[in-house]
């Protein structure tokens, strides 16, 4: 198993390098330069030229890339000219909000997906199963952002059950009330996100449970007279639920991608919203850092999933 994990990590390194080159080239392709906004436009052109030379902007791209990577490793990601603060601090601030929402969505996803998937598999063909399948079919077909818009319209504006913007009410103070207020702000986006996230879990679990229900070892147990509750608890659930853990890593990708829509529609001050603002203000240091960060998180997510899967399912190791 260690071999598989080591190999998996080794594959990661070239991927990370290619990703960073890509992001670097993308940053270079963007109009303007890192000084846009921070230099006084009235200053002497010769002075600007000297500054750019001092910062290595006339070096060949691979030299510039090298300096960029070295800076990256020193935690020096540059300044955001829109917010006039180091990008690292900015991301720390916004990142907490996004993380908070993502974790909440993930918990809801599993809390909804696990029971529904097992229930559907157990009751295969009954009306409750049909209902669950209609639900997965509908959420799979409709674009996520349309549901977010309709969700905020009905539950946020028309019914007024949930706040429609921000991450915390401005007038709240104290640990307890502010925690509640934060929770109140993420319930609706988290719930809508979870409704979408559950589809894969439900479909996977359902087919998994149905498969093991018809497998030879379960039939043997039934023939031996083991009560069906015990069969479900000891064999079917355990077999079906373990691989689900691996989905957590893969779903990071989906959560991060979806966060751009969620945070825009709910005016939620997280990294997705930060990204959209940065694009609109051409705040390049923020844009490149975020693309790199999200790519790295995707990589980490698949790595964790692959490792979990290889632990849970020995067949993958052999392959």
């Amino acid at each position, binding site marked *: 198993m260690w071999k598989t994990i080591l190999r998996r990590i080794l594959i990661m390194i070239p991927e990370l390098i290619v990703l960073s080159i890509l992001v670097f080239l993308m940053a270079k392709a963007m109009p303007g330069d890192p000084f846009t906004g921070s230099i006084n436009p009235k200053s002497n052109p010769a002075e600007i030229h000297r500054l750019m030379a001092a910062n290595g902007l006339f070096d060949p791209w691979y030299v510039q890339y090298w300096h960029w990577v070295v800076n990256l490793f020193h935690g020096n990601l540059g300044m955001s000219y829109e917010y006039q603060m180091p990008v690292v601090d900015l991301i720390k601030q916004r990142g907490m909000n996004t993380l908070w929402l993502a974790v909440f969505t993930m918990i809801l996803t599993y809390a909804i997906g696990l029971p529904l998937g097992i229930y559907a598999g157990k009751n295969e063909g009954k009306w409750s199963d049909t209902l669950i399948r209609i639900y997965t079919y509908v959420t799979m077909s409709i*674009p*996520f*952002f349309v549901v977010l818009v309709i969700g905020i*319209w009905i539950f946020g504006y028309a019914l007024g059950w949930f706040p*429609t913007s921000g991450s915390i009410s401005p007038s709240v103070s104290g640990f307890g009330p502010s925690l509640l207020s934060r929770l109140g702000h993420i319930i609706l986006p988290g719930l809508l996100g979870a409704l979408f996230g559950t589809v894969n879990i439900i479909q996977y679990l359902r087919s998994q449970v149905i498969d093991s229900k018809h497998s030879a070892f379960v039939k043997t147990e039934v023939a031996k007279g083991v009560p069906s509750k015990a069969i479900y608890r000891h064999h079917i659930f355990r077999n079906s639920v373990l691989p689900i853990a691996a989905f957590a890593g893969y779903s990071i990708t989906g959560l991060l991608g979806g966060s751009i829509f969620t945070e825009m529609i709910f005016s939620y001050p997280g990294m997705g919203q930060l990204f959209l603002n940065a694009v609109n203000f051409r705040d390049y240091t923020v844009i490149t850092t975020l*693309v790199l960060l999200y790519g790295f998180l995707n990589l980490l997510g698949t790595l964790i999933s692959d490792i979990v899967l290889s632990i849970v399912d020995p067949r993958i190791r052999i392959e």
Partner: protein
Amino acid sequence: MAYEFSGRDELSDAELLELSKEAESEATPSTIRVMFNEFKADKTAMASAIFIVAFILLVVIGSFFINVPQIMQTDLMGYYAKPFTNYILGGDSSGRPILSQLVVGSRNSILIAIGLTAISSTFGVVYGLVSGYYGGYVDLTMQRVYDFMMIIPMLMTIIVLVTIIPHYNAITLTLLLSIFYWMGTSRLIRSSTLAESQKDYVAASKVSGTSNLKIMFREILPNISSLIIVDTTLSFAENIGVETGLSYLGFGLPDGTPSLGTLIANANDPNNITQYWWTWLPAALEIILLCLAISYVGQVLRRTANASQRRGN
């Protein structure tokens, strides 16, 4: 019931006709035939398919009669006009008629989705076929590229690229999106090609000296064609979401070009979302209906591809 030869060398025309009829009835029905039967057995699927085709024709033909620059002009008289007053579906914040925008927007969104599906599916199919058929180092290398594409934060990268590209339009947008949406198809085709290339007919064909290209595209491809049709249908529904989502965020079609996404973006204004619901709700409902219908057809086709789930015969 096999036809019995009467001992003569020559067959009469009538006999030949009868023979070919018999052969036809005993052969496995063609994919198209099976699909047709499946639709005949499922009335809802038939209705969905007719709805989709009729709708696409309607918006494409209808949009020819609409002068886009003219409807995109500000009209003070139609400012937030209620439905059935100035315009059938009302007007938006600049007094532009919603219905005309809806027709033109649907056409733009659907055509981009069709273009995107055509390009990305073709590429995905070829990529999956080559990767799965050759296996070994070819597959390994191609899968590394696939893995790398998977870790790129897609939506963010597309948004950045859209802002970098100067003077982009519907065609550049479609091409740009195509770079990022072939992976799912390629994965699916690769795994079924892997399974297919283990079969005897491929081995036999190789031994008899058929070229690899011919085996891939003339022999394996027809055998997985039903899978491709299903996948294409489902990606079409998904791709409508891709373009409209991007236009919704403001990084899809440029300003002044209506899209279903830009219409839904009206909902970003708290006033619009509650008071002037007609500015965005019709577009949202249309996307929901269209996507549901398309993926319903996709589900029916999936049943067709999987013989054990068929309803028709």
